[in-house]
C-alpha cells in the first residue's frame, strides 16, 4: 500500500479540530457525570454544606491527626499502615502493623489476630493524596465490624507533627 500524504491544515481545519475537541470534552464529561450518578462507586458532584469535602465510603470515617495521636497515646487503637513494606520499614507509627492494599490477603494473614481483636482500627497511608488507607479500610470492613478510621492527613503529617516513629521491617 502506498502511503497517502495527508492534507495540510488550513484555518478552517484548525477551527474544525478545536470544535471537535470541545465536543469530545463536553460529551465525555457529560457521560462521566451520568455514569457517576448511577454508579455504586459514585461520589457527590459537589459536597453539600456541612458534608465532608473529600468522599469516604460508607463505614470509613475520618480521624483527625490529633485524635489519632490521643488514641496512640492511650493505646486504644490498632494502627494499620497501608504504605508499601519498604516505606513502612523506613519509619512507621510504633506498634503499627503493615497491610498494604496490594497483596492484601497475605499481609492481612500476618496480622489477623491483632486486627480481629482490635477494638478500634486506624489506617494510615502516605498523605492526603493517597487512597491506599481507604482501600485497606474497605477491605477490613469485610472482615471486622465498622467503623474503620483513616488518618486522611497521612504519614507525612504524623511525621511533621513530631509524633513518635520507629524503624524496622514487619516481622
Amino acid at each position, binding site marked *: 500500500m*502506498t*502511503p*497517502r*500524504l*495527508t*492534507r*495540510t*491544515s*488550513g484555518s478552517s*481545519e484548525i477551527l*474544525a*479540530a*478545536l*470544535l*471537535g*475537541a470541545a*465536543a*469530545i*470534552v463536553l*460529551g*465525555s*464529561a457529560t*457521560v*462521566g*457525570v451520568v*455514569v*457517576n450518578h448511577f*454508579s455504586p*462507586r*459514585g*461520589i*457527590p*458532584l*459537589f*459536597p453539600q454544606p456541612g458534608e465532608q*469535602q*473529600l*468522599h*469516604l*465510603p460508607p463505614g470509613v470515617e475520618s480521624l483527625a491527626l490529633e485524635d489519632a495521636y490521643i488514641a496512640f497515646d492511650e493505646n486504644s487503637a490498632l494502627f494499620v499502615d497501608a*504504605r*508499601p513494606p519498604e516505606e513502612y520499614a523506613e519509619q512507621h507509627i510504633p506498634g503499627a502493623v503493615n497491610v498494604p*492494599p*496490594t497483596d492484601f490477603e497475605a499481609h492481612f494473614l500476618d496480622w489477623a489476630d491483632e486486627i480481629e481483636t482490635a477494638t478500634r482500627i486506624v489506617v494510615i497511608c*502516605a*498523605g*492526603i*493524596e*493517597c*487512597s*491506599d488507607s*481507604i*482501600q485497606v479500610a474497605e477491605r477490613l470492613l469485610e472482615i471486622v465490624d465498622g467503623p474503620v478510621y483513616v488518618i486522611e492527613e497521612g504519614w*507525612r503529617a504524623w511525621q511533621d507533627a513530631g509524633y513518635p516513629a520507629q524503624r524496622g521491617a514487619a516481622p
Partner: protein
Amino acid sequence: MAGRRLSGPAGSGALNAASRPNWLGHPAVGAACRLLLGAVFVYASFPKLLRPGDFARLVHGYQLLHPDLVNLVGITLPWIEVAAGAFLLLGILPRSSAAIVAGLLALFMAAGFLALARGLDIECGCFFPLMGGHELGWDLLARDALLLLPAFQVMIWPSSFLAWRRA
C-alpha cells in the same frame, strides 16, 4: 499517491512545508504516534474511572483547586482521558483528540510544576494505582513533555493509516 495541498501553488510556505513528504509526516509514523498516545491515555484512565473518589483525593493533593471542585474533576477528567485515548486508537477525529491530549499534558505539567515549586511531596497519580505509588518529580514532567511530541505530530499530520476511518 502524491500529496495534495490545501493551498494552491501560491500557498504559504508553512503549509507547503507541512505537506512536504518527510519521515515525520509519514502515515506510519503518524499511526504509531496515534496508537502510542491512545494506548497511554486509555491505560491511564481506567483505574481513575473505577475509583473517582480516590482520584479526586489525588487531585486535592496538588492543592490547586478549591476542595468543592475536586470531585467534579475526579469524575470528569478520566472520561475525557479515555474518550481522547479511544478516539486516537480508532483514528476518529485524531486532530481533535490529539489537541485534547496535548492540552491535558500541558495541564499535568503545569500542575506538577506548581506542586514541585511549592515543595509538595505527593504522589503523581499519573497511572494510579496500576503502577503503584510514584512520587511526583521532574522526571515525570519530562515524560509528559516527551509525550507532547507525538501529540503535535498527530495534530500536524493526522494519519488515517491503521485508522477505523479516514482522518
